[in-house]
């Protein structure tokens, strides 16, 4: 059973689903739910995801059946049929996805059969069940991708040995998903792979449709997208390789060696790619080494982020910035098994440092975990304080950061204090951006 949450950092399945559809070009959602659902999600996602906007067909353009009491009593299937038919008339899309909310699921509308009536429509209409009570936005993202794999992706017997699909970043939930995917694609290209990130820059629905001939699915997450990965495996016979989201050079090296090793890419090719990345990367890092050492830019770190970012950032600040991560709070709702899986990601740092790991979705808990793991000041004359520090989290951490007199870099949803376009933190380019933003905070007052 799920627990109550103090200021959740994610939405419901419908939210995750709408975020995914927002990311798919020329795809029109048809929401079968109460009036406010889609709008509520848009408002939260627009601001929380660094001003993502409604895109092509989001915000108040989202077709929605807006069911009210009458449909709740008499059933909403007729209303849905009408809404799908009119949406096909009014809205210009290449793919239409019917999504269901809590109410219509509770009253037992058979949205699947209503959708099936539109099998002969000029463009495909598919249905995905996304009631809010069934989980959170990570599930919603997953279940849409699963449905695409099942109903939209063309089956291909022959696989391209050098082609991989990449997923596992939740659009909107990962505020930097688009910049991250661009970088992952670039890195995989460096070792001779064709990378299809499905929802990346310049990619279209055709890329989703043609994702059935990849040799491997690279899932950039220890926990997200299990259903989608399974659907690709079972239906399209494409195995998955799970890897953490890599941030910075060291994690990128591990990432490329893992993928390359798995696909049997020659070591020389990978070495060559890494060598070139290394040169570019550390050339920039070298810039800050003057001030890092002249001024002492080492900090304690407090990381509050989701299951993708928390391990990656903690390792990055420990092993690349040379900082001391003290506490990492992972904010997703995770099973014990998933937690154990993630725990392993915090081991074997090159620096040898260790962080306190907590799994907690409640915002007020962060302060409690900090005061529980760092000795309090009981008016000691020689108090060893949690300072100087930098907080990596969401805007929910702003007040705590102010209290700690530590700068805050917002990296995890919700991010309402930054506008995010194509910035990414993944890979080597992302590592540079991360270091740039972080050190930028330290010189902001200069």
């Amino acid at each position, binding site marked *: 059973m799920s627990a109550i949450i103090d200021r959740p950092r994610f939405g419901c399945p419908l939210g995750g689903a709408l975020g995914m559809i927002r990311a798919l070009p020329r795809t029109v959602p048809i929401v079968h739910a109460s009036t406010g659902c889609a*709008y*509520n999600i848009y408002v939260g996602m627009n601001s929380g995801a660094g001003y993502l906007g409604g895109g092509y067909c989001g915000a108040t353009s989202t*077709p929605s059946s807006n*069911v009210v009491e009458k449909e709740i009593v008499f059933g909403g299937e007729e209303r849905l049929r009408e809404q799908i038919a009119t949406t096909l008339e009014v809205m210009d*899309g290449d793919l239409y996805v019917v999504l269901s909310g809590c109410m219509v699921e509770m009253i037992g509308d058979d949205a699947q059969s209503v959708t099936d009536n539109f099998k002969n429509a000029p463009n495909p209409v598919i249905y995905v069940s996304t009631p809010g009570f069934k989980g959170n936005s990570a599930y919603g993202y997953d279940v849409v991708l699963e449905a695409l794999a099942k109903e939209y992706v063309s089956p291909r017997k022959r696989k391209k040995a050098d082609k991989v699909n990449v997923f596992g970043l939740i659009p909107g939930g990962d505020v930097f998903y688009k910049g991250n995917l661009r970088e992952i694609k670039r890195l995989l290209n460096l070792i001779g792979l064709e990378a299809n990130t499905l929802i990346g820059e310049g990619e279209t629905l055709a890329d989703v449709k043609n994702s059935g001939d990849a040799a491997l699915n690279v899932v950039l997450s220890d926990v997200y997208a299990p259903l989608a990965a399974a659907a690709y495996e079972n239906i399209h016979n494409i195995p998955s390789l799970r890897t953490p989201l890599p941030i910075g050079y060291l994690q990128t090296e591990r990432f490329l060696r893992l993928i390359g090793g798995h696909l049997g890419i020659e070591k020389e090719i990978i070495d060559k790619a890494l060598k070139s990345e290394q040169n570019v990367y550390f050339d920039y890092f070298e810039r800050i080494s003057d001030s890092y050492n002249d001024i002492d830019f080492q900090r304690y770190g407090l990381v509050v982020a989701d299951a993708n970012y928390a391990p990656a950032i903690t390792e990055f600040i420990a092993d690349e910035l040379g900082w001391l991560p003290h506490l990492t709070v992972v904010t997703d709702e995770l099973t014990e098994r998933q937690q154990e899986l993630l725990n392993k990601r915090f081991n074997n740092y090159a620096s040898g440092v260790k962080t306190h790991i907590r799994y907690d979705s409640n915002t007020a808990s962060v302060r409690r975990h900090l005061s529980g793991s760092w000795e309090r000041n009981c008016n000691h004359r020689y108090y060893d304080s949690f300072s100087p520090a930098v907080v990596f989290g969401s805007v929910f951490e702003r007040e705590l950061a102010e209290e700690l007199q530590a700068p805050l870099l917002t990296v995890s949803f919700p991010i309402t204090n930054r506008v995010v376009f194509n910035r990414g933190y993944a890979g080597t380019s992302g590592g540079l951006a991360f270091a740039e933003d972080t050190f930028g905070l330290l010189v902001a007052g200069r």
Partner: protein
Amino acid sequence: MIIENAAPAREERLKAGIAFCGTCAQLQNRLGQKDNGCLYAVNRSFSQAHGCQFTLSLGILNTLRNAVVIMHGPVGCGFCSTANIGTNKNFKKLRDPSAGGIIWLSTNLDESDVIEGGEKKLRAAVLYADREFRPEAIVVASSCVPALIGDDVDSILENLERETAAELVPVNCEGFKTKLMATAYDAVYNGVLKKLTKYRERNVYLTESELSGKLWEYERERTVNVFNVGSMSRADELEIKRLLSALELKVNFLPCFSRPDDFRAALDAALNISVCGTHDDYYLKYIHKEFNIPYVIDTMPIGKKATARWLLKIAEHFGQVERARLLIQKEEAELEQALESYREILKGKRVYVSGGEVRIFVTAEVLTDLGMEIAGFKGHHIDEFVRPVMEGLPDIDDIYINIASQHPFEQVNIVKRLNPDLLVIHTGSGNITAKHGLPVLPLFGPGYNYMGYSGVFEIARRLRRIITNNQFNRNMQKYRPAPYRSEWYAKEPSAYIKDTGTK
């Protein structure tokens, strides 16, 4: 007077409607018929997303200082609050520099709660909120799921009252109950009435003199409550305060950005004043009956005409009409001078105005006063409160009006036909509106001044700025297509309105 368990839907209580296409004269004709010409029964066969009474309730609840809001529902309900994290804190600080940010909890109802009921989690959330944050009030906003599974939130809270330091306020605002999101105002006030609207004990000292009692009485007789709206800015409030202070009135602002206890303090007042008929009638009528405080619900103090009308109504109550007339005269003369240089550039520009039913008409008065022409209207819903403001506008009979809660698909069709020079719009459809390629002034904004005399000047000033460079939206129009089929633009804008009522 008995307080209902939940506020009724406005389509029932006010026979309010959300769908209409026609001229202002046709609309007025319809409103003149029995039950507003059955506009409440009109629906669409194609509809788009807009807010529900839950999301709009949060528009008020999230502003309350020293309160925690519990979203009783699945984890997504109240997700929209994310947009208020920083802004509301800053707006609260304008009222109280020590104010904290907004805090909300989700009861995160899942599949098993749908079967077993949400009581256990609601109790846990209330106790957590009370222990962790020690707020003055804990507001429970109930969404669709607990309403459908039959959680008796009022009783659950009643039983918890002895265990909490905070006042527990139920707000029953499930979205599916109404197609009129404005029902939210009633839903919030319904909760406020249940728990926060009580007489406050006045501290009377043993040695209190007759004079101090009289002074208190004197002050009470000159205190007014102005019922603000979430779309108002602090600058709007200060302008209203300035004008009412000129009539020697002391002003409280409720409900937005107030503390829970302010609702008690507000019962020591001589008059309740609404700034927008759409918002407050449910509450003010109740307070009138139960606590004998008269109210003014008339127009919205935006633009010279409406501001004067609004001020005079208030002045009338206090026997200050002459004084108000002088004030208005002086204010208008000064404003006239200030506007002079703006009229030239704004003159003759055709403008399409969309948003709340009252606000669009009072704003239209500002625009026409500046020499602009109204190309068309869109009102988010329609009910009786529009009458006094529509009456105030001459020559609107033939102007096209669309009643639509958002629904940008109708807007794109209509705007294309009307071909205005600029748009004044309600928040929420910005990305589609941008694709008209026209300059856009938001109809309201909690960071800007629109009300009173200074508001007219601010609108003029901003209009000039906005029409001076429209390159951003032009690029959007050029490079980013709207999602509507070309066939749609050839159809009548009313094509998807199912109007079974009288014409």
